[in-house]
């Protein structure tokens, strides 16, 4: 099974360990993983700002990079959702459509495609789960507090396979952290306040780490935690699933 690793631009530049963990984890689970070197970005920063009409070049580049793999896997719910919903390229619509159907966020790929039921990872810490909105409400990685439907969570199912981990949830289990792409600067006051409130609930739970499927949310919360000189750290789910503490 040939997997094209799609690494969001900010992960590439600022959180390489997340991409490394993702790659190692997938390889461990038997995938052949390639990282197309010419990839740049899913185009979401432009589209969420209202500029999807100038993102054709970016989209085309994405299709050029990821045609020819069996699956595209990405350690970010938000970027995955963007590709799934909005990847269109004039003249290459068939390829684009194929990618839209092949693209998976890491945890849904592990559960739905690889059908993982155990892991060798261990992570003896208390971990708060942050439910990133695009993964949850967009990709349906987990049930949502607003809906009257059976409860489930793909990220949680995976984390529960990790030895030694203690999971805990904030009181408002799936409230947005306030990152929101460019929202975080154009609506700085609300964004920061939302982040502070999210972080506080995890602090109240005395967690060691906050984890989630989206490094962007975690980056935002990390920024707040660091400013507050908090002891709580953030960690991407891939790093936990690939972790070995003894």
């Amino acid at each position, binding site marked *: 099974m040939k997997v094209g690793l799609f690494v969001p631009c900010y992960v590439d530049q600022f959180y390489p360990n997340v991409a490394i963990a993702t790659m190692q984890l997938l390889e461990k689970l038997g995938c052949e993983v390639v990282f197309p070197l010419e990839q740049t970005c899913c185009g979401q920063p432009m589209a969420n700002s209202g*500029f999807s009409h100038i993102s054709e070049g970016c989209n085309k580049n994405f299709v050029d990079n990821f045609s020819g793999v069996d699956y595209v896997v990405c350690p970010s719910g938000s970027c995955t959702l963007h590709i799934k919903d909005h990847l269109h390229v004039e003249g290459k619509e068939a390829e684009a459509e194929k990618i839209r159907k092949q693209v998976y966020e890491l945890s849904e790929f592990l559960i739905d495609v690889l059908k993982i039921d155990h892991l060798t990872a261990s992570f003896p810490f208390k971990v708060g789960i942050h439910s990133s909105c695009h993964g949850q409400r967009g990709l349906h990685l987990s049930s949502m507090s607003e809906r009257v439907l059976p409860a489930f969570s793909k990220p949680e199912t995976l984390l529960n396979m990790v030895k030694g981990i203690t999971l805990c949830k904030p009181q408002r289990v799936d409230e947005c952290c306030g*990152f929101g792409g460019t929202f975080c600067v154009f609506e700085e006051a609300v964004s920061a306040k939302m982040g502070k409130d999210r972080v506080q609930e995890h602090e109240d739970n005395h967690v060691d780490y906050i984890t989630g499927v989206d490094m962007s949310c975690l980056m935002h919360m990390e920024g707040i935690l660091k400013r507050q000189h908090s002891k709580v750290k953030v960690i991407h789910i891939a790093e936990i699933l690939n972790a070995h503490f003894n």
Partner: protein
Amino acid sequence: MQGTTTHSEKAAQFIANEPRTDWHDDTLWFVRTKRDRAAHTIEAWEGLRATASHIKEHTLSNLHDYLTQFEQNALANGVQVHWAADAAEHNAIVHSIIKKAGIDKIVKSKSMLTEECHLNEYLIQQGIDVVDTDLGERIVQFRHELPSHIVLPAIHLKKQDVSDTFHEHLGTEKDNIDPSYLTHAARLHLRDKFIASDVAITGVNFAIAETGGIVVCTNEGNADMGVHAARVHIACMGMEKMIPKAEHLGVFLRLLARSATGQPITTYSSHFHKPRKGAEMHIVIVDNGRSRQLGRADFRNSLKCIRCGACFNTCPVYRRSGGHSYHNAVAGPIGSILAPNIDMRKNADLPFASTLCGSCSNVCPVKIDIHDQLWKWRQVLMKEGYGGSGKNIMMKGMAFVLSHPRIYRMAGGMGRKVMRWMPWLFNNKSLNPWYKNREMPAPPKQSFREWYQQNKQ
């Protein structure tokens, strides 16, 4: 957007008082949790939402016929039907009815449509004494403010604020902040108004095409007190309030109050078909941009809205920025998709007042794809050039780099310069709003790409 204060600026002013922001957030979150509890008592909740959505979609696809049918049946019931293309015409019609009745004091129960049309302002200019009778609306009316929420108009105010206002206007004891005491004072004050008023204006929650009747829902009983005491009833409705049949009320009334406040139903669900003997009933049907919104395939769904307010209560941005930050009669997520239809320039900021978290679409009892429409409005507004040139240039630069991998890699290699195009990573502490409340991520020794080239190739 130019010349006025944008949502983000108003939000920043709101948040400057952090304890009050926390209080506002908690109060509305409490309403959201009540809604959750109520929804979970109904096994078929999601089926109800789907059905409500379907009925509304069907109605919109046949709105012309239903409006005609409604009018015919209402006329046959002895109701006078008026049509208004816009706010000005609506206000003029209402005023002419009041004038004809020879009255200068009226009572009005809650109607977001009349807020949208700025009816109060207009009538007061014409010398009419308008008394809002919903408690929350009366409070904001005394304070010369606008409602900050479509269901909970005074939700931005604390007991002390209300106490001060009532002390000034109703002579209640200074600093008595007991809600029962304050509500009772308003009850006595407004009972006199009901009894003295010969014209009552109400909104409309649902208009039934097959019977020509309207349904009005309240908890306080103020709509009924007003209407039944008055000689003339004027009901103002946006034309999207239509539903085909009375049996459909079963679906909508099961959803409305549960979504709004977590009650199983409002205290009063009043069905008006004919005026009582000797009285008059008027219905004013208003377009005010609705037919235009109906023509926008991406946005027509917003006309399904039954104004329950659930999307406000769940919205993490609304809860932390307050209704007034939306500078529009209808605030919150739904307001942000209705407002640009009315005035793109003035409201170009509103679709950006969201993280697109999607919680609004999940609570919406008629399944409006609110967050998707927010996204789509952004595309329309920026394409039309309402973003300003700075944003335009920045985005174009970003698009250029991201579509040229070689330049992108070079930029990345040159100390992550590409991140200049990601505004939240713009590495300049004095200019970057990110840095106000957050640290920057620490740059690692090498990027993933560099690691991959070193280790995997």
